[in-house]
């Protein structure tokens, strides 16, 4: 007899295989081209800041390509299975819907982890012939990028349980943008708004994912230290937010009628 963990792992592995078949990893090649292009073509324009520009572009591309995968794969993942009716064959077995949603999330996370590892290795390779002053903070930056993408993936999976793939993609992108300015929104509400606006911006601040806590790219590129305590707190926050999204997604998907 197999447990829920085995079901989650089986769905996750299958989802991972599916994304590999969809040639998602071609994006790693595009990432490499962007990196090499930014280091070779843009060099004459960087005026003494080549290392900074290559590092900025590399770390930003890493997050951006990860986000593209989450938006275009994550937001349509459940819908695709429902549309093709392949989900019925899985759910006909003793696999709970919660385990299925968690497995889908796990598979995408596994894909992202492999992609980030490959892109991180490419980035380190490019730094060999560019003046990027490497420091241990870059490893932390890769870790923070993964945590950020895990939170966005959980949001995408949650949205995909009750809205159409296009709407889920648009909302995920919008939440990514708002997630980076939620602190400023709260500050804005406190500064210029009345009690209602102040309350609304505070609620938004606590409900929406605060993705800016995972943004250490600037600090790392400029050689500023990133504390282990910050990394630990951010990892804890990401875990809580991901778990919350998956619990909600499981609850919604369990009540959903599959035609």
């Amino acid at each position, binding site marked *: 007899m197999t447990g829920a963990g085995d079901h989650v792992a089986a769905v996750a592995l299958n989802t991972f295989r599916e994304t590999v078949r969809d040639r998602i990893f071609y994006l790693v090649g595009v990432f490499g081209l962007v990196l090499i292009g930014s280091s070779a073509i*843009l060099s004459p*324009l*960087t*005026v*003494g*800041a080549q290392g*900074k*520009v290559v590092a*900025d*572009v590399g770390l*930003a591309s890493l*997050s*951006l390509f990860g986000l593209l995968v989450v938006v275009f794969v994550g937001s349509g993942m459940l819908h695709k299975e429902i549309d093709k009716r392949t989900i019925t064959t899985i759910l006909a077995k003793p696999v709970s819907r919660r385990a299925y949603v968690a497995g889908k999330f796990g598979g995408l996370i596994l894909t992202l982890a492999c992609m980030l590892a490959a892109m991180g290795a490419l980035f380190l390779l490019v730094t060999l012939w560019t003046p990027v002053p490497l420091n241990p903070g870059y490893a932390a930056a890769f870790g923070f990028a993964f945590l950020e993408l895990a939170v966005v993936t959980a949001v995408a999976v949650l949205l995909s349980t009750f809205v159409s793939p296009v709407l889920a993609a648009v909302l995920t992108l919008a939440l*990514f*943008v708002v997630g*980076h*300015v939620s602190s*400023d929104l709260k500050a804005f509400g406190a500064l210029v708004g009345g009690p209602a606006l102040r309350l609304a911006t505070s609620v938004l601040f606590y409900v929406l994912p605060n*993705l*800016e806590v995972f*943004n250490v*790219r*600037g600090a790392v*590129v*400029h050689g*500023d230290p990133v504390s282990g305590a910050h990394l630990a707190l951010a990892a804890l926050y990401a875990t809580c937010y991901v778990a919350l999204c998956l619990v909600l997604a499981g609850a919604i998907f369990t009540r959903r009628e599959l035609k």
Partner: protein
Amino acid sequence: MSHGRTLCAGATPGAARLGRPWPDWLPTALAVVALGGAAVGLLGRLEARPVGREADRLWLPSGLFLRESTAGFREVAADALWFQAVQYYGEYRHGRHDLAYFRGMMRGVTTLDPRFLEAYRFGALVLATDMRDVEGGIDLLRRGILANPDRAILPFEVGFLQWVVQRDYARAAVWFDAASRAPDASDFTRRFAAFAHKRAGQLEVSYVLWRNLLDTTSDPNMRDLAERMMAKIEPVLRARAAADADGAAGPGDGADQARSGEARP
């Protein structure tokens, strides 16, 4: 069955089936060449008429707005604006404009990435020299110092501008001193701070700075220079101390000697 036409060389079975005298790929190739050529030609003409480029720079949003609208990719946005600023400066060097929007562009770059040291340095230098706005350049550097209080290069640049452009040696010396106290101050920064103080007549401070350099540097050339400079300052300080003890010498003797260049590196 004959179509009454001769198929040209290279004609594909599809062309033969349809009875055309040209290969199937030819219309596509011609269309690609014609449309591609037209697009390239039009782009060239559009580039020659840069409608709204100056206006784009005039209406460059404030750095704070840019910060909010870049969704966590601020540093890359700063790099993109930095490229534009460098190109804009290049156009100025070719006599195409008067750098009117340079200040706004640098403000945008440094607001998006407050730790972009190269932008502060380049921006301040262009403001102070090409635009003859030394105070503007120093203001930019001061903003940089607020955002990067532990970096020696920015106060050093303020001192540099006051030394070479404003020729205010006393104020320059204060900034070099501040730079030499930064955690990442180099031997050169400390050496320059000492030299600036000597030029300003503050020999005691200069001596301490040279001593500090001697104690902290591992570079033999620097040590040699520090020892030589201290050896030159010591007699002046000793003479001043002796004069003070006798009560015969007037104030400023040592400083006058220093200004006359007796103790230069």
